[in-house]
């Protein structure tokens, strides 16, 4: 399967290319997709997920248009061809 992880502008400088990471294999869930990111880009993963394995409080993760906070969190299923979109929340300033 193939899943696209779309990074926000703030993290694109950490990876080569345009900030879209194609992950495949056994992604299956958002957690699986982010673990695949971690294998090649650990600094990107660390900016999305804390040491406790939780999405950072001011980072939102969407599968398509749906925020995983209101779904199954990191266990939210992803289908082949899905887009996992990382975006900073509107908090901060």
């Amino acid at each position, binding site marked *: 399967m193939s899943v696209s992880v779309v990074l926000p502008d703030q993290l694109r400088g950490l990876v080569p290319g345009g900030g879209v990471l194609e992950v495949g294999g056994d992604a299956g869930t958002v957690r699986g997709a982010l673990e695949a990111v971690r294998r090649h880009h650990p*600094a990107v993963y660390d900016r999305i997920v804390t040491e406790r394995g939780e999405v*950072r409080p001011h980072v939102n993760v969407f599968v398509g248009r749906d925020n995983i906070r209101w779904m199954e969190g990191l266990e939210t299923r992803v289908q082949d061809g899905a887009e996992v979109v990382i975006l900073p929340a509107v908090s901060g300033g």
Partner: protein
Amino acid sequence: MPEGPKGIQGSAGDVVLLVGTTKGAFLFRSEPTRASWVMDGPHFPGEEVYALSLDQRGGQRALWAAPGNPFFGATLRRSDDLGATWSGKGDRPVKFPEDSGLSMKRIWQIQPGRDSEPRRLFLGVEPSCLFESRDGGASWEPVEGFMNHPHRPRWEPGAGGLCLHTIVPHTRDPERMLVAFSTGGVYGTDDGGASWSPRNKGVRAEFLPDKYPEFGQCVHKVVNHPDQPERLYLQNHWGLYRSDDWGATWRDIANGVPSDFGFAMTVHPRDPDTVYIVPLEADVFRCTPEAKLRVYRTRNGGESWEPLTRGLPQENAYETVLRDALCSDQADAAGVYFGTRSGKVYASRDEGDSWSLVRDGLPPVVCVDAAVLV
């Protein structure tokens, strides 16, 4: 778009002033006279910078910054050209072990180790923990004896979070070190960090039923002088103290100050009897008393304090100076510096006798550090 910062390009003898704010870091440089300052910044715009340090041990000029991105967390950056370039953009070297149950929120303190160990550095972080590097900052590990301290479940966060904000290495004994954090108080190790015990005897905790507990105090800052490492000064959340036995006992030295509440404290670079503070009115009104911006100085180890007001506003000055926003340089006469939550930075080049405004209009200042370039 304005051009980005280019660094401050100083020469030996110049003085640098590092200012961390809630929205980035600003670097200042002056010639040795310290008559005027040039500013460079913001570095890390939009990111909070609670810790800055210039480490000149071993012939290096390692400028360390701890920017915290409000979305993507805190990290550590290094510049070897006074801010022209920064390394470490893609790194995230300071992390808790995943099985610790802890997640790093902020780096509060960057403390170079002893002069005899130029590749050793320490960090104080939130939630309260001490990290150590033995390879010049390339890699970091939590000090396990502190991270796994049995008191940890009983440490409560203060208003600023559960933050380890103060690290005091013993300048003569490499096995000894003190840390201070809110809340928890002062803890010390005599065995190189393997074990830690509270050192809060005589320090009050106004906000607890037991006013003098073994630990749980909200200590705001501890300073000492390298030549007399075992004499300590402490600014508490209510209380101003001195210890002459490396923190085993503390005595009140709030002699003639308008309030013993405050955050910031620094010691003179050559005189262990001279200490500076900026008292605030109260925990419920964290502003300079009587709307006068006054630094207080003792020259006799806390037996008495004098207000320093020349060049500082003495009316309508509702200012706050936070725990790391007061420092001195090593020049002769000593320079003293502070920044306010209202974004002003003041400097004295005559040991506090008179002050001038270095800069206004910055974001809220959370830390300052100053050094003479060698």
